[in-house]
């Protein structure tokens, strides 16, 4: 999953560096607050540990061997923010000194494995483990399942990054400039290996090490288990997370900028657009002047009445101001997603209260 240089376009690399940067910043701030002068030595040795654990040759069911990334065990012990930094540092050392993963693709690799991997591990681990005792088998299985889900989610992100390259970047003759396979090939090709071997390696090393720690030194599992006073439970109320909420709110307030966009997004035409002569001209211009069907396509006409959205065109009909309608729709949409996530977490944690 270590993407080398040359597979992703510089634009994709830049976007993923940009996407990773706020997570690195927040992680460093949170870790510095928790660990004070311990930050540098502890993160250094844990990064070194992550690096070495990636070199372990692990026997897998079926007679083959595999390597783990180590995101599972690092997250369970260090928490998501510490793991983001430790895995990122390990990936940087790998890219610069061992040629494993590219330098331009370092942002992408850190985004997929360190950030997505650590956060997914943490959410799944805490959700399944609930408040089960530190030495319970449930906690060990939670860690293994979390690592399996996390490495596959990270692989899916990498596959999507590969798969969008031929859609976005082609030369004048239409030949792909970077990773050449579309999503329909990239996703199955990437996921088959990760759903089987790489996922198994990550789950085995994480579950195995957690089982060992449960017998030898369970206190190492305590800080991010949800059982201790410190850790992520209190972290969730820190000002930095508050700032992220403020950022989300600012983005919601900026949604009226969407009304500045002219016309309809390509491929989002309605029956009305096909019936109107001016709209038809705009659709043809946006589609390289390919001939449009004479009337409204039969399938579009039939399916358009199958479902009527409560907020058509992002603005409820009873609201006259379009920017305000956009903003209200954004708040409603984000609120709906957060409510589903909150309910899901509540449901899973309620299950976890009865070990």
């Amino acid at each position, binding site marked *: 999953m270590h993407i080398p240089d040359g597979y992703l376009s510089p634009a994709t690399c830049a976007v993923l560096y940009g996407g990773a940067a706020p997570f690195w910043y927040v992680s460093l701030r949170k870790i510095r607050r928790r660990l004070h002068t311990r930050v540098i030595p502890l993160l250094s040795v844990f990064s070194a540990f992550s690096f070495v654990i990636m070199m372990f*040759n692990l026997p897998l069911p079926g007679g083959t061997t595999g390597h783990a990334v180590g995101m599972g*065990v690092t997250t369970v012990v260090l928490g998501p923010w510490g793991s983001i930094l430790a895995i990122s540092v390990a990936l*940087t050392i790998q890219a610069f000194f061992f040629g494993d993963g590219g*330098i331009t693709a370092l942002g992408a690799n850190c985004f997929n494995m360190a950030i997505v991997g650590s956060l997914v591990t943490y959410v799944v681990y805490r959700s399944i483990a609930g408040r089960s005792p530190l030495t319970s088998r449930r906690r060990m299985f939670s860690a293994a399942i979390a690592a399996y889900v996390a490495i596959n989610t990270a692989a899916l992100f990498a596959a999507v990054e590969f798969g969008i390259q031929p859609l976005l970047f082609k030369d004048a*003759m239409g030949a792909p400039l970077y990773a050449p396979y579309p999503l329909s090939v990239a996703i199955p090709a990437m996921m088959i290996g990760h759903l089987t071997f790489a996922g198994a390696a990550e789950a085995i090393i994480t579950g195995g090490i957690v089982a*060992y720690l449960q017998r030898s030194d369970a206190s190492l599992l305590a800080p991010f288990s949800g059982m201790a006073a410190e850790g992520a439970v209190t972290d969730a109320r820190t000002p930095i997370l508050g700032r992220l909420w403020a950022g989300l709110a600012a983005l919601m307030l900026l949604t009226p900028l969407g009304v500045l966009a002219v016309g309809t997004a390509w491929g989002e035409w309605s029956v009305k657009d096909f019936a109107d002569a001016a709209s038809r001209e705009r659709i043809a211009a946006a589609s390289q002047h390919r001939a449009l069907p004479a009337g409204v396509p039969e399938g579009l006409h039939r399916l358009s009445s199958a479902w009527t959205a409560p907020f058509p065109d992002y603005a409820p009909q009873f609201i006259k101001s379009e920017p305000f309608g956009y903003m209200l729709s954004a708040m409603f949409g984000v609120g709906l997603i957060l409510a589903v996530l909150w309910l899901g977490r509540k449901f899973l944690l309620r299950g976890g209260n009865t070990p």
Partner: protein
Amino acid sequence: MSQHGFLSGSIAAFTHALQHALESEELARSDGWLQRLNPRVKLVGLLALIVATAASRKLSVVLLIFAVALVMAMASRVQWKTLLTRVWLPVLGFTGVIAVPAIFLTPGEVFWRSPFGGVHVTHAGLRAAAMLVSRVETAATLSTLLILCTPWTHVLKALRSLHVPVEIVAILMMTHRYVYLLIETANEMFVARQSRMVGRLDAAAQRRVATRTGGVLLGKTVQLGEEVHLAMQARGFRGDVRLLDEFRMAARDYAALALLLGITAAALYVGH
């Protein structure tokens, strides 16, 4: 897999990493064009060329950058054999496997049609595969040149010129130091276990050995972190990081930087 295969595999990986590091350090101390340059110039110049390689839309430009990399390798006394075994063959093996199916799968004008069945090679497929392989080979050659011709601690310190925060540079430098200690520790644990094995271990037992070793290594890591922290505090560490900047720019460095950035600018201009 042989009964000791998983242990031998890990030991081989550790040994390879240590050998790789020793060879790189040795080459970085030898006398050559890149070795004589300021590490910041090498880092900025070679990274700029890697970005130009990634950004180019023309195969000819990528191949010209590859030629520049070869000239730099010759001027820096980097053996062809070293590049062949470390970069070109491994990259060709990995990227070639990914690129070859694209020759057949990429839609476009047919270049060659197999007389047996519906297999055909397209012009677009050939261009896509050639572009991918040459781009990855060139970028990997450039990044390997950076590492082979610069002591690793200098590369990390030079990251400050890219405005990487000083704390991160300090963490990278310490990680780099402790990676070798932990590799050595893990290696010793595996060798000790291997020397005590007289029978066959089934797959489940092998996995238990590997994960227990990982667990012990984690325990040792935590202990090491605490010891290092106490040692740093004993030396007066209060959380502020300072790095000595011993790099000085000479006229040769300015000339080399201008040359490398000039080639990058030309490649970016022509490549688009």
